Protein backbone atom coordinates (compact mmCIF):
# COMPACT_ATOMS: atom_id res chain seq x y z
CA UNK A 1 0.00 0.00 0.00
CA UNK A 2 1.11 3.51 -0.77
CA UNK A 3 2.06 5.77 2.12
CA UNK A 4 -0.60 7.76 3.93
CA UNK A 5 0.13 11.49 3.84
CA UNK A 6 -1.62 14.57 5.17
CA UNK A 7 -2.61 16.74 2.22
CA UNK A 8 -4.63 19.84 1.44
CA UNK A 9 -7.69 19.31 -0.77
CA UNK A 10 -6.58 21.65 -3.53
CA UNK A 11 -3.16 20.04 -3.74
CA UNK A 12 -4.69 16.58 -3.71
CA UNK A 13 -6.82 17.44 -6.76
CA UNK A 14 -3.78 18.81 -8.55
CA UNK A 15 -1.65 15.74 -7.86
CA UNK A 16 -4.53 13.41 -8.74
CA UNK A 17 -4.90 15.20 -12.07
CA UNK A 18 -1.23 14.62 -12.87
CA UNK A 19 -1.63 10.95 -11.99
CA UNK A 20 -4.67 10.71 -14.22
CA UNK A 21 -2.51 11.85 -17.12
CA UNK A 22 -3.55 15.50 -17.25
CA UNK A 23 -1.02 17.09 -19.58
CA UNK A 24 -2.14 20.71 -19.56
CA UNK A 25 -3.69 23.11 -17.09
CA UNK A 26 -4.97 26.61 -17.80
CA UNK A 27 -6.23 28.79 -14.96
CA UNK A 28 -6.58 32.17 -13.35
CA UNK A 29 -6.07 32.91 -9.64
CA UNK A 30 -9.13 33.05 -7.39
CA UNK A 31 -9.59 32.13 -3.71
CA UNK A 32 -10.23 29.48 -2.39
CA UNK A 33 -8.68 27.28 -5.07
CA UNK A 34 -5.46 29.01 -6.11
CA UNK A 35 -3.31 26.24 -4.60
CA UNK A 36 -4.35 24.06 -7.54
CA UNK A 37 -2.61 26.49 -9.92
CA UNK A 38 0.37 26.96 -7.66
CA UNK A 39 0.89 23.23 -7.29
CA UNK A 40 0.56 22.52 -11.00
CA UNK A 41 2.84 25.41 -12.02
CA UNK A 42 5.62 23.41 -10.40
CA UNK A 43 4.41 19.86 -10.94
CA UNK A 44 3.28 19.79 -14.57
CA UNK A 45 6.62 20.88 -16.07
CA UNK A 46 8.26 18.07 -14.05
CA UNK A 47 6.25 15.51 -16.00
CA UNK A 48 6.62 17.25 -19.37
CA UNK A 49 3.23 18.94 -19.12
CA UNK A 50 2.15 22.53 -19.64
CA UNK A 51 1.00 25.04 -17.06
CA UNK A 52 -0.21 28.39 -18.36
CA UNK A 53 -1.73 31.20 -16.33
CA UNK A 54 -4.29 32.71 -18.68
CA UNK A 55 -5.21 36.38 -18.98
CA UNK A 56 -8.78 35.60 -17.93
CA UNK A 57 -11.15 32.80 -16.99
CA UNK A 58 -12.63 33.17 -20.47
CA UNK A 59 -9.25 32.64 -22.11
CA UNK A 60 -8.44 29.74 -19.77
CA UNK A 61 -11.52 27.72 -20.74
CA UNK A 62 -10.86 28.40 -24.42
CA UNK A 63 -7.27 27.24 -24.06
CA UNK A 64 -8.78 24.09 -22.54
CA UNK A 65 -10.95 23.88 -25.66
CA UNK A 66 -7.91 24.00 -27.94
CA UNK A 67 -5.93 21.48 -25.91
CA UNK A 68 -8.89 19.10 -25.69
CA UNK A 69 -9.48 19.38 -29.44
CA UNK A 70 -5.85 18.32 -29.78
CA UNK A 71 -6.64 15.11 -27.89
CA UNK A 72 -4.90 15.93 -24.60
CA UNK A 73 -6.18 15.44 -21.06
CA UNK A 74 -6.65 18.97 -19.77
CA UNK A 75 -8.03 20.73 -16.70
CA UNK A 76 -9.00 24.15 -15.45
CA UNK A 77 -10.17 25.22 -12.02
CA UNK A 78 -11.79 28.22 -10.43
CA UNK A 79 -14.41 29.31 -7.96
CA UNK A 80 -17.97 30.64 -8.51
CA UNK A 81 -17.28 34.04 -10.13
CA UNK A 82 -14.66 32.51 -12.40
CA UNK A 83 -16.86 29.56 -13.30
CA UNK A 84 -19.56 32.07 -14.30
CA UNK A 85 -17.10 33.58 -16.79
CA UNK A 86 -16.27 30.14 -18.16
CA UNK A 87 -19.89 29.31 -19.01
CA UNK A 88 -19.60 30.43 -22.63
CA UNK A 89 -16.68 28.10 -23.22
CA UNK A 90 -18.39 25.27 -21.35
CA UNK A 91 -21.42 25.48 -23.63
CA UNK A 92 -19.14 25.33 -26.69
CA UNK A 93 -17.19 22.39 -25.22
CA UNK A 94 -20.36 20.35 -24.75
CA UNK A 95 -21.61 20.69 -28.32
CA UNK A 96 -18.13 20.13 -29.75
CA UNK A 97 -18.06 17.04 -27.49
CA UNK A 98 -14.68 17.90 -26.08
CA UNK A 99 -13.66 16.16 -22.84
CA UNK A 100 -12.10 18.15 -20.03
CA UNK A 101 -12.21 18.52 -16.26
CA UNK A 102 -13.41 21.74 -14.61
CA UNK A 103 -13.01 22.18 -10.86
CA UNK A 104 -15.24 24.59 -8.95
CA UNK A 105 -14.19 25.14 -5.34
CA UNK A 106 -17.25 27.22 -4.71
CA UNK A 107 -17.60 30.20 -2.40
CA UNK A 108 -20.37 32.43 -1.15
CA UNK A 109 -22.27 34.35 -3.81
CA UNK A 110 -23.95 35.91 -5.71
CA UNK A 111 -21.65 38.46 -7.31
CA UNK A 112 -18.25 38.76 -5.74
CA UNK A 113 -19.72 37.28 -2.56
CA UNK A 114 -17.03 36.09 -0.20
CA UNK A 115 -14.48 33.31 -0.01
CA UNK A 116 -16.19 31.07 2.54
CA UNK A 117 -17.48 27.59 1.62
CA UNK A 118 -20.81 27.45 -0.17
CA UNK A 119 -22.92 25.13 -2.31
CA UNK A 120 -24.85 27.81 -4.14
CA UNK A 121 -23.41 26.88 -7.54
CA UNK A 122 -25.46 23.65 -7.71
CA UNK A 123 -27.90 25.06 -10.26
CA UNK A 124 -25.05 26.51 -12.31
CA UNK A 125 -23.27 23.16 -12.44
CA UNK A 126 -26.22 20.80 -12.78
CA UNK A 127 -28.81 22.79 -14.71
CA UNK A 128 -26.30 24.41 -17.03
CA UNK A 129 -25.07 27.95 -16.47
CA UNK A 130 -24.39 28.48 -20.13
CA UNK A 131 -26.77 28.63 -23.08
CA UNK A 132 -28.40 25.72 -24.84
CA UNK A 133 -29.58 22.18 -24.11
CA UNK A 134 -26.61 20.57 -22.47
CA UNK A 135 -25.46 18.70 -19.40
CA UNK A 136 -22.21 18.42 -17.55
CA UNK A 137 -21.31 15.35 -15.58
CA UNK A 138 -21.06 16.77 -12.05
CA UNK A 139 -19.15 15.02 -9.26
CA UNK A 140 -19.44 16.07 -5.62
CA UNK A 141 -16.57 14.90 -3.41
CA UNK A 142 -16.86 15.12 0.37
CA UNK A 143 -13.35 14.29 1.59
CA UNK A 144 -9.81 14.91 0.47
CA UNK A 145 -9.41 11.22 -0.37
CA UNK A 146 -12.51 11.45 -2.55
CA UNK A 147 -11.13 14.54 -4.27
CA UNK A 148 -8.43 12.20 -5.52
CA UNK A 149 -10.59 9.28 -6.59
CA UNK A 150 -13.18 11.55 -8.20
CA UNK A 151 -10.52 13.54 -10.06
CA UNK A 152 -9.31 10.25 -11.51
CA UNK A 153 -12.88 9.31 -12.37
CA UNK A 154 -13.58 12.75 -13.85
CA UNK A 155 -10.86 12.33 -16.47
CA UNK A 156 -12.13 8.84 -17.28
CA UNK A 157 -15.78 9.88 -17.62
CA UNK A 158 -14.85 12.96 -19.67
CA UNK A 159 -13.04 10.80 -22.21
CA UNK A 160 -15.61 8.00 -22.10
CA UNK A 161 -18.50 10.30 -22.97
CA UNK A 162 -16.56 13.10 -24.69
CA UNK A 163 -18.16 15.57 -22.30
CA UNK A 164 -16.85 18.13 -19.81
CA UNK A 165 -16.94 16.96 -16.20
CA UNK A 166 -17.25 19.41 -13.34
CA UNK A 167 -15.95 18.62 -9.87
CA UNK A 168 -18.13 20.66 -7.53
CA UNK A 169 -16.33 21.15 -4.25
CA UNK A 170 -16.29 24.09 -1.90
CA UNK A 171 -13.80 26.22 -0.04
CA UNK A 172 -13.76 23.89 2.93
CA UNK A 173 -12.80 20.83 0.87
CA UNK A 174 -10.16 22.83 -0.96
CA UNK A 175 -8.57 24.30 2.15
CA UNK A 176 -8.73 21.37 4.58
CA UNK A 177 -6.13 18.68 5.09
CA UNK A 178 -6.85 15.00 5.63
CA UNK A 179 -4.77 11.85 5.37
CA UNK A 180 -4.82 10.44 1.86
CA UNK A 181 -3.41 7.51 -0.03
CA UNK A 182 -2.69 7.89 -3.72
CA UNK A 183 -3.82 4.82 -5.55
CA UNK A 184 -3.37 4.24 -9.26
CA UNK A 185 -6.40 5.22 -11.32
CA UNK A 186 -7.85 1.99 -12.69
CA UNK A 187 -10.56 2.15 -15.32
CA UNK A 188 -11.55 0.08 -18.34
CA UNK A 189 -9.70 0.93 -21.55
CA UNK A 190 -11.05 3.83 -23.62
CA UNK A 191 -11.28 4.08 -27.39
CA UNK A 192 -8.51 6.11 -29.03
CA UNK A 193 -9.25 9.77 -29.72
CA UNK A 194 -9.41 9.44 -33.49
CA UNK A 195 -11.50 12.62 -33.61
CA UNK A 196 -8.64 14.79 -32.31
CA UNK A 197 -7.33 17.56 -34.55
CA UNK A 198 -3.69 16.89 -35.33
CA UNK A 199 -3.22 18.15 -38.87
CA UNK A 200 -4.40 16.17 -41.92
CA UNK A 201 -1.17 14.22 -42.23
CA UNK A 202 -2.23 12.86 -45.62
CA UNK A 203 -5.64 11.73 -44.41
CA UNK A 204 -9.11 13.25 -44.73
CA UNK A 205 -9.22 16.50 -42.80
CA UNK A 206 -11.15 16.88 -39.54
CA UNK A 207 -13.22 19.74 -38.15
CA UNK A 208 -14.23 20.22 -34.52
CA UNK A 209 -17.23 22.42 -33.76
CA UNK A 210 -19.02 22.73 -37.09
CA UNK A 211 -21.54 25.48 -37.79
CA UNK A 212 -25.07 24.04 -37.81
CA UNK A 213 -27.41 26.69 -39.16
CA UNK A 214 -30.29 24.41 -40.23
CA UNK A 215 -32.85 23.83 -37.49
CA UNK A 216 -33.36 20.18 -38.34
CA UNK A 217 -29.65 19.45 -38.33
CA UNK A 218 -29.18 21.20 -34.99
CA UNK A 219 -32.11 19.31 -33.52
CA UNK A 220 -30.40 16.09 -34.53
CA UNK A 221 -27.21 17.25 -32.81
CA UNK A 222 -29.17 18.01 -29.65
CA UNK A 223 -31.02 14.70 -29.75
CA UNK A 224 -27.74 12.84 -30.11
CA UNK A 225 -26.37 14.70 -27.09
CA UNK A 226 -29.59 13.98 -25.22
CA UNK A 227 -29.23 10.25 -25.85
CA UNK A 228 -25.71 10.50 -24.48
CA UNK A 229 -26.99 12.19 -21.31
CA UNK A 230 -29.61 9.43 -20.91
CA UNK A 231 -26.85 6.86 -21.26
CA UNK A 232 -24.89 8.67 -18.54
CA UNK A 233 -27.99 8.72 -16.30
CA UNK A 234 -28.34 4.97 -16.78
CA UNK A 235 -24.69 4.03 -16.23
CA UNK A 236 -22.92 6.45 -14.00
CA UNK A 237 -24.99 7.21 -10.89
CA UNK A 238 -22.93 7.14 -7.70
CA UNK A 239 -24.11 7.71 -4.15
CA UNK A 240 -23.23 6.74 -0.61
CA UNK A 241 -25.83 5.38 1.79
CA UNK A 242 -25.08 5.90 5.47
CA UNK A 243 -26.89 5.24 8.73
CA UNK A 244 -30.01 3.21 9.22
CA UNK A 245 -31.15 1.11 6.24
CA UNK A 246 -34.75 1.49 7.50
CA UNK A 247 -34.81 5.10 8.61
CA UNK A 248 -37.65 7.12 10.10
CA UNK A 249 -36.25 10.15 8.31
CA UNK A 250 -34.08 10.27 5.22
CA UNK A 251 -31.41 12.96 5.10
CA UNK A 252 -30.01 14.06 1.75
CA UNK A 253 -26.94 16.22 1.35
CA UNK A 254 -23.81 16.40 -0.77
CA UNK A 255 -20.17 17.36 -0.29
CA UNK A 256 -19.25 19.16 2.91
CA UNK A 257 -22.86 19.16 4.11
CA UNK A 258 -23.00 15.38 3.88
CA UNK A 259 -20.08 15.14 6.32
CA UNK A 260 -21.99 17.23 8.82
CA UNK A 261 -25.05 15.03 8.23
CA UNK A 262 -22.98 11.97 9.15
CA UNK A 263 -22.35 13.58 12.53
CA UNK A 264 -26.10 14.24 12.76
CA UNK A 265 -26.87 10.58 12.02
CA UNK A 266 -24.46 9.40 14.74
CA UNK A 267 -25.64 11.94 17.30
CA UNK A 268 -29.23 11.10 16.42
CA UNK A 269 -28.53 7.42 17.01
CA UNK A 270 -27.43 8.25 20.56
CA UNK A 271 -30.86 9.83 21.06
CA UNK A 272 -32.61 6.77 19.63
CA UNK A 273 -33.40 8.32 16.24
CA UNK A 274 -33.25 6.09 13.18
CA UNK A 275 -31.76 8.32 10.52
CA UNK A 276 -30.59 7.43 7.04
CA UNK A 277 -28.41 9.52 4.76
CA UNK A 278 -28.10 9.50 1.00
CA UNK A 279 -25.10 11.40 -0.23
CA UNK A 280 -25.25 11.89 -4.00
CA UNK A 281 -21.70 11.59 -5.36
CA UNK A 282 -22.86 12.30 -8.90
CA UNK A 283 -25.12 15.38 -9.00
CA UNK A 284 -25.67 14.74 -12.68
CA UNK A 285 -26.59 11.97 -13.12
CA UNK A 286 -28.72 12.34 -9.97
CA UNK A 287 -29.45 9.22 -7.85
CA UNK A 288 -33.19 9.76 -8.18
CA UNK A 289 -34.26 6.09 -8.03
CA UNK A 290 -32.42 5.36 -4.81
CA UNK A 291 -33.65 8.57 -3.19
CA UNK A 292 -37.20 7.77 -4.29
CA UNK A 293 -36.99 4.24 -2.87
CA UNK A 294 -35.56 5.24 0.51
CA UNK A 295 -37.75 8.33 0.78
CA UNK A 296 -40.87 6.22 0.36
CA UNK A 297 -39.59 3.82 2.96
CA UNK A 298 -38.80 6.58 5.44
CA UNK A 299 -41.89 8.62 4.69
CA UNK A 300 -40.08 11.93 5.28
CA UNK A 301 -37.06 13.62 3.80
CA UNK A 302 -34.85 16.46 5.04
CA UNK A 303 -32.48 18.05 2.55
CA UNK A 304 -29.63 20.14 3.94
CA UNK A 305 -27.49 22.38 1.75
CA UNK A 306 -25.18 25.37 2.03
CA UNK A 307 -27.57 27.41 -0.11
CA UNK A 308 -31.22 28.40 0.05
CA UNK A 309 -32.61 25.31 -1.70
CA UNK A 310 -31.14 24.03 -4.94
CA UNK A 311 -30.58 20.26 -4.90
CA UNK A 312 -33.81 20.01 -2.92
CA UNK A 313 -35.63 20.61 -6.22
CA UNK A 314 -34.10 17.45 -7.68
CA UNK A 315 -35.02 15.52 -4.54
CA UNK A 316 -38.63 16.72 -4.90
CA UNK A 317 -38.63 15.67 -8.56
CA UNK A 318 -37.27 12.28 -7.51
CA UNK A 319 -40.08 11.61 -5.02
CA UNK A 320 -42.74 13.17 -7.28
CA UNK A 321 -44.79 14.58 -4.43
CA UNK A 322 -45.34 11.23 -2.69
CA UNK A 323 -43.26 12.14 0.34
CA UNK A 324 -42.92 15.45 2.20
CA UNK A 325 -39.51 17.00 1.60
CA UNK A 326 -38.23 19.47 4.21
CA UNK A 327 -35.31 21.79 3.72
CA UNK A 328 -32.70 23.42 5.90
CA UNK A 329 -29.97 25.61 4.45
CA UNK A 330 -27.39 28.19 5.38
CA UNK A 331 -25.96 30.58 2.86
CA UNK A 332 -23.39 33.32 2.33
CA UNK A 333 -20.55 31.11 3.55
CA UNK A 334 -22.24 30.00 6.78
CA UNK A 335 -21.76 26.33 7.60
CA UNK A 336 -24.72 24.57 9.22
CA UNK A 337 -23.89 22.99 12.57
CA UNK A 338 -24.74 19.42 13.46
CA UNK A 339 -26.47 20.69 16.60
CA UNK A 340 -28.90 22.93 14.73
CA UNK A 341 -29.64 20.31 12.11
CA UNK A 342 -30.34 17.74 14.82
CA UNK A 343 -32.87 19.99 16.50
CA UNK A 344 -34.56 20.45 13.11
CA UNK A 345 -34.56 16.66 12.71
CA UNK A 346 -36.18 16.24 16.10
CA UNK A 347 -38.90 18.73 15.19
CA UNK A 348 -39.70 16.87 11.97
CA UNK A 349 -39.66 13.40 13.50
CA UNK A 350 -41.88 14.29 16.46
Amino acid sequence: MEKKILMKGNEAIAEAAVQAGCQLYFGYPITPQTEISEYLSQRLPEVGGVFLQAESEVAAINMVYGASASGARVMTSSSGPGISLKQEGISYLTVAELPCVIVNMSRGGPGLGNIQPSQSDYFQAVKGGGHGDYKLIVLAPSSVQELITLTHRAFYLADKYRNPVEILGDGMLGQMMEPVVFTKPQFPPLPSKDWAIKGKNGRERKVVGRLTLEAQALEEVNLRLHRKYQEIQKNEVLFEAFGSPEPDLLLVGFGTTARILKTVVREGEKKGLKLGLIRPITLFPFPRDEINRLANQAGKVLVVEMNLGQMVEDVRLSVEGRVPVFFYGRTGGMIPTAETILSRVEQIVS
Partner: protein
Amino acid sequence: MHNEIIIGGFGGQGILFLGKVLATAGMLEGYHVSWFPSYGPEMRGGTANCTVIISDQEIGATISDHPHIVVAMNEPSLFRFAPSLKEGGLLLINSSLVEKEYQKEGIEIAKIPANQLAGKVVNNPKTLNMVVLGALIGYRPILPLSQVHRALEECLAGKEGLIEKNNQALETGWQYACQGGVTHVSQR
Protein backbone atom coordinates in the same frame (compact mmCIF):
# COMPACT_ATOMS: atom_id res chain seq x y z
CA MET B 1 -11.05 8.97 21.43
CA HIS B 2 -12.45 12.12 19.90
CA ASN B 3 -10.76 15.48 20.29
CA GLU B 4 -11.64 18.74 18.62
CA ILE B 5 -8.91 21.33 19.02
CA ILE B 6 -9.00 25.00 18.00
CA ILE B 7 -5.71 26.88 17.86
CA GLY B 8 -5.99 30.65 17.49
CA GLY B 9 -3.56 33.56 17.39
CA PHE B 10 -1.82 36.04 15.12
CA GLY B 11 -0.71 35.26 11.58
CA GLY B 12 3.02 34.58 11.77
CA GLN B 13 2.90 32.63 15.05
CA GLY B 14 3.06 29.34 13.19
CA ILE B 15 -0.47 28.33 14.07
CA LEU B 16 -1.26 26.46 10.86
CA PHE B 17 2.01 24.56 11.14
CA LEU B 18 1.29 23.69 14.76
CA GLY B 19 -2.02 22.25 13.63
CA LYS B 20 -0.39 20.36 10.80
CA VAL B 21 2.14 18.69 13.12
CA LEU B 22 -0.63 17.79 15.55
CA ALA B 23 -2.83 16.33 12.79
CA THR B 24 0.10 14.42 11.31
CA ALA B 25 0.89 12.94 14.73
CA GLY B 26 -2.74 11.82 15.02
CA MET B 27 -2.56 10.26 11.57
CA LEU B 28 0.68 8.43 12.44
CA GLU B 29 -0.96 7.13 15.59
CA GLY B 30 -3.65 5.59 13.38
CA TYR B 31 -6.53 7.97 14.02
CA HIS B 32 -8.82 9.77 11.60
CA VAL B 33 -7.74 13.42 11.46
CA SER B 34 -8.75 16.64 9.78
CA TRP B 35 -7.14 20.10 9.64
CA PHE B 36 -9.10 23.13 8.62
CA PRO B 37 -7.60 26.63 8.56
CA SER B 38 -9.21 30.01 8.69
CA TYR B 39 -8.47 31.50 5.32
CA GLY B 40 -8.97 35.08 4.48
CA PRO B 41 -7.72 38.09 2.60
CA GLU B 42 -4.98 38.93 5.11
CA MET B 43 -1.55 37.59 4.28
CA ARG B 44 0.32 38.66 7.43
CA GLY B 45 -0.50 40.20 10.77
CA GLY B 46 -4.17 39.31 10.81
CA THR B 47 -5.78 36.65 12.91
CA ALA B 48 -5.22 33.00 12.13
CA ASN B 49 -6.79 29.90 13.51
CA CYS B 50 -7.20 26.30 12.65
CA THR B 51 -9.30 23.39 13.77
CA VAL B 52 -7.77 19.95 14.18
CA ILE B 53 -9.95 16.93 14.86
CA ILE B 54 -8.46 13.63 15.96
CA SER B 55 -10.88 10.74 16.28
CA ASP B 56 -11.23 6.99 16.19
CA GLN B 57 -14.33 7.48 14.01
CA GLU B 58 -14.71 8.83 10.49
CA ILE B 59 -14.79 12.62 10.86
CA GLY B 60 -18.01 14.38 9.95
CA ALA B 61 -17.98 18.13 10.39
CA THR B 62 -14.46 19.55 10.22
CA ILE B 63 -15.32 22.65 12.19
CA SER B 64 -16.06 22.52 15.88
CA ASP B 65 -18.99 24.05 17.74
CA HIS B 66 -17.75 22.90 21.14
CA PRO B 67 -14.04 22.07 21.12
CA HIS B 68 -12.35 19.86 23.70
CA ILE B 69 -9.21 22.00 23.63
CA VAL B 70 -8.70 25.68 22.85
CA VAL B 71 -5.19 27.02 22.44
CA ALA B 72 -5.13 30.80 22.74
CA MET B 73 -1.87 32.19 21.42
CA ASN B 74 -3.09 35.77 21.90
CA GLU B 75 -5.82 37.69 23.69
CA PRO B 76 -8.36 38.10 20.86
CA SER B 77 -8.47 34.37 20.22
CA LEU B 78 -8.89 33.68 23.93
CA PHE B 79 -12.10 35.66 24.04
CA ARG B 80 -13.25 34.41 20.66
CA PHE B 81 -12.86 30.67 21.20
CA ALA B 82 -12.77 29.96 24.94
CA PRO B 83 -16.52 30.55 25.53
CA SER B 84 -17.42 27.61 23.26
CA LEU B 85 -15.21 25.08 25.17
CA LYS B 86 -16.88 21.83 26.13
CA GLU B 87 -17.32 21.06 29.80
CA GLY B 88 -14.13 19.44 31.08
CA GLY B 89 -12.21 20.96 28.21
CA LEU B 90 -8.73 22.42 28.33
CA LEU B 91 -7.93 26.08 27.74
CA LEU B 92 -4.22 26.50 27.05
CA ILE B 93 -3.09 30.10 27.19
CA ASN B 94 0.15 31.61 25.92
CA SER B 95 0.83 33.59 29.08
CA SER B 96 3.64 35.54 27.41
CA LEU B 97 1.07 37.50 25.44
CA VAL B 98 -2.16 37.10 27.41
CA GLU B 99 -2.29 39.07 30.62
CA LYS B 100 -6.02 39.11 31.26
CA GLU B 101 -7.54 36.37 33.37
CA TYR B 102 -10.34 34.28 31.95
CA GLN B 103 -13.13 32.66 33.93
CA LYS B 104 -15.39 29.83 32.83
CA GLU B 105 -16.87 27.12 34.97
CA GLY B 106 -16.06 23.46 34.47
CA ILE B 107 -12.91 23.79 32.38
CA GLU B 108 -9.22 23.35 33.01
CA ILE B 109 -7.08 26.42 32.44
CA ALA B 110 -3.38 25.92 31.81
CA LYS B 111 -0.65 28.37 30.95
CA ILE B 112 2.60 28.32 29.02
CA PRO B 113 4.94 31.34 28.72
CA ALA B 114 5.72 30.30 25.17
CA ASN B 115 7.48 33.42 23.91
CA GLN B 116 9.83 33.51 26.91
CA LEU B 117 10.64 29.80 26.72
CA ALA B 118 11.19 29.93 22.96
CA GLY B 119 13.43 32.97 23.31
CA LYS B 120 15.42 32.13 26.42
CA VAL B 121 15.49 28.34 26.67
CA VAL B 122 15.36 27.27 23.02
CA ASN B 123 17.07 30.46 21.92
CA ASN B 124 14.86 30.70 18.85
CA PRO B 125 11.69 32.85 19.14
CA LYS B 126 10.21 31.28 16.00
CA THR B 127 9.80 27.93 17.79
CA LEU B 128 7.09 29.24 20.11
CA ASN B 129 4.48 27.16 18.29
CA MET B 130 6.34 23.94 19.11
CA VAL B 131 6.76 25.04 22.72
CA VAL B 132 2.97 25.39 22.85
CA LEU B 133 2.40 22.03 21.16
CA GLY B 134 4.78 20.33 23.63
CA ALA B 135 2.87 21.92 26.51
CA LEU B 136 -0.46 20.84 25.01
CA ILE B 137 0.68 17.20 24.94
CA GLY B 138 2.10 17.63 28.45
CA TYR B 139 -1.14 18.91 29.91
CA ARG B 140 -3.42 16.61 27.86
CA PRO B 141 -1.59 13.50 26.65
CA ILE B 142 -3.97 12.83 23.75
CA LEU B 143 -1.02 11.49 21.72
CA PRO B 144 2.40 10.14 22.72
CA LEU B 145 5.11 12.80 22.57
CA SER B 146 7.29 10.45 20.50
CA GLN B 147 4.65 10.47 17.77
CA VAL B 148 4.63 14.27 17.78
CA HIS B 149 8.42 14.28 17.32
CA ARG B 150 8.00 11.89 14.37
CA ALA B 151 5.27 14.08 12.89
CA LEU B 152 7.47 17.15 13.25
CA GLU B 153 10.25 15.44 11.34
CA GLU B 154 7.80 14.43 8.61
CA CYS B 155 6.45 17.97 8.34
CA LEU B 156 9.95 19.40 8.10
CA ALA B 157 11.06 17.05 5.31
CA GLY B 158 13.37 19.06 3.08
CA LYS B 159 14.14 21.50 5.90
CA GLU B 160 16.12 19.11 8.09
CA GLY B 161 18.21 21.95 9.51
CA LEU B 162 15.20 23.12 11.50
CA ILE B 163 14.40 19.80 13.15
CA GLU B 164 16.78 20.00 16.10
CA LYS B 165 15.62 23.38 17.45
CA ASN B 166 11.97 22.50 16.98
CA ASN B 167 12.39 19.15 18.75
CA GLN B 168 14.04 21.03 21.58
CA ALA B 169 11.10 23.43 21.68
CA LEU B 170 8.61 20.56 21.87
CA GLU B 171 10.60 19.06 24.72
CA THR B 172 10.81 22.40 26.54
CA GLY B 173 7.05 22.96 26.43
CA TRP B 174 6.33 19.37 27.40
CA GLN B 175 8.66 19.49 30.42
CA TYR B 176 7.22 22.80 31.56
CA ALA B 177 3.74 21.26 31.57
CA CYS B 178 4.81 17.95 33.13
CA GLN B 179 6.76 19.60 35.90
CA GLY B 180 3.59 21.11 37.24
CA GLY B 181 3.21 24.07 34.96
CA VAL B 182 0.53 26.53 35.87
CA THR B 183 -2.91 25.05 35.88
CA HIS B 184 -6.13 25.08 37.74
CA VAL B 185 -9.49 23.44 37.29
CA SER B 186 -12.41 25.71 37.85
CA GLN B 187 -15.25 23.90 39.56
CA ARG B 188 -18.81 24.03 38.52
